[in-house]
């Protein structure tokens, strides 16, 4: 579904991504692991068209989307749940959700309201808090709202940026149950960026490990769990074995 070949991304003169290649097949949950500053968010933003200073190729459903605008990419079916949720705190839960369907609201209004019911089935708590302003929700509820909002654009590929951040373990499991449900029941393909390797590998089929802008490891979840290189990628180059 998504194929990236040798992507290089820059912030001015600083090269944030170096030769990134990865792919996500239909129906998979693929995770992108790495420490802070590894380039994970940069990668998601590149896919979404938010970062334009790039070299390399991105194809989605066999179409080259490398030069496409962000709006065009959303319309093609890619939706991001950004790091830190970035909800509209003063708007209600309902409004946040509706805004997620902004680009096709007018043309598919009926479908959208029907779809809202599906969202409320997945996140019953959001139905409860429908009229509350987003800023008053707890961390976990906000994360659910952010995911719900992203789903409102009816994406075929959902990008999740660190959904576990700042959440208590119990809430994290709830969120990850939802992620699993999305793949299993809704057939949503998911690219999941995470710092929390264990929780991510628990739910993902495959993963890639990013270290300072480069992919250093890839494999199935089982293979990655087995590989100690991940520890290195997280703890940094200075990490040495006791005997070294």
């Amino acid at each position: 579904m998504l194929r990236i070949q040798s992507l290089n991304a820059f912030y001015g003169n600083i090269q944030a991504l170096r030769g990134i290649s990865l792919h996500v097949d239909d129906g998979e949950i693929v995770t992108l692991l790495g420490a802070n500053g590894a380039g994970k968010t940069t990668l998601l933003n590149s896919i979404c068209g938010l970062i334009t200073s790039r070299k390399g190729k991105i194809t989605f459903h066999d179409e080259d989307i490398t030069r496409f605008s962000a709006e065009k990419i959303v319309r093609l079916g890619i939706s991001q749940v950004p790091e830190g949720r970035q909800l509209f705190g003063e708007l209600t839960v309902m409004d946040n959700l509706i805004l997620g369907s902004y680009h096709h609201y007018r043309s598919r209004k009926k479908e959208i309201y029907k779809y809202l019911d599906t969202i409320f089935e997945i996140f019953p708590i959001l139905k409860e808090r429908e009229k509350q302003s987003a800023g008053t929700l707890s961390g976990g509820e906000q994360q659910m709202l952010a995911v719900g909002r992203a789903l409102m654009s009816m994406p075929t590929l959902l990008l999740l940026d660190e959904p576990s951040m700042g959440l208590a373990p119990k809430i994290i499991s709830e969120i990850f149950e939802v992620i699993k449900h999305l793949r299993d029941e809704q057939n949503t393909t998911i690219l999941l960026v995470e710092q929390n390797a264990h929780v991510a590998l628990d739910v993902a089929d495959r993963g890639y490990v990013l270290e300072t802008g480069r992919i250093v490891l890839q494999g199935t979840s089982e293979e990655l769990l087995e590989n100690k290189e991940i520890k290195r990628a997280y703890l940094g180059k200075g990490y040495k074995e006791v005997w070294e």
Partner: protein
Amino acid sequence: MAIKDRKYETLQRDALQQLQLERLQAILNRVYMNVAFYRNLLDKAGIAPEDISSLDDLPKIPFTAKESLVENQPYGMFTLPLREVVRLQSSSGTTREPIVVGYTKNDIEHWTELVSRVLMAGKVTKDDVVQISFDYGLFTGALGFHYGAELIGATVIPCSRLSAEKQIAVMRNYRTTVLVGTPTFALQVVDIMNEQGINPAELSLRVGLLGSEPWSEVVRQEIERGLHITALDNYGISEIIGPGVAVECEEKNGMHIFEDHFIPEVVDPETGEVLPEGETGELVLTTITKEAFPLIRYRTGDLTSLHYDACPCGRTLVRMSRVAERTDDLIIIQGVKVLPSRIEQILAEIEGTETHFRLNVDRSGATDELEVSVEVSDRIFFDEVGKMSEIQEEIQRRLDEALGLFVRVRLVEPMSIQKWKESSGNSH
């Protein structure tokens, strides 16, 4: 269809290439960070890992030769501390110094999976009885096949280097269906069965997965006839992983290389230039999933050609032609590359000769000269002296036609030359 892993063995080529690119880039990043040898190699060549932005860029990276592996023994080429390495094995050291290779837990799993693909090509299932006649120990052949067969659930008999007579007894008693070993060993079994008057029908053998040394079609037919089995070739090399690099399918038209784990290239042994599809040259392999001991563009010293056309078996993996010999066997006479296997082929077509021959190169004169000493079959040598000069001329003519070279031919008595390729049995 005898394919173990449909997902990867029949993957569309564009998806396969994406996978190869991803894995290649990841491993380049890792070896650059963790292996001084590769860091220096790339730095000296002025290449950074990210300069490899497509598979076409692979030739930018300098080769890794066996000498470098020898120089960096014992652990210089390892990417991880020894505590992550769960197994050490080595390539045999008959002609050169042995190389120690290492495997992580994931490496062992991949290796096992790959060997089970090899066995599956021979339709091995859990109902089979697999007899392994490779030497158990540091050599990768035995344990590689052992684990692969166990993964499939077959009954594994680790005969190791038990004598051929004893192994035949095992085959009878335990109804061995699959023989794993060298072609030389299989021939020994054929010979002993002939001597002892044992009918192959008395055994339950069905298939032989033979390798670890070059062997010809002629030898394959002897084995298949002698043991009433299908004999399939498979290719492996200890420095790369052991067995599990490539295997013949039922078409017997080349061995499919497991490209999701290894990227093959064929290069001119002298210039290093990458050769196009179909041309014979030295096989160069890059491991893209090995963790402990990955190799980038490793010169195997084996001569082969690559074929990307579709195979009726359904696998989309490239095929390599059987390895007839190594680059050190290649003889260059007056600028012409002479492959001993080609000579063997020609002799096989001529009646009255055995395919036992010896090559003699004389470089003392103004031009290099090649002489072939060929064994004549019993019958002709003793009865028909007149026929001998006919045969000599025939051979001369055929060789001239095929090689474009004048080759002096000497006919010698039967049994005076050992089969020209005497293999140690553990040449890898």
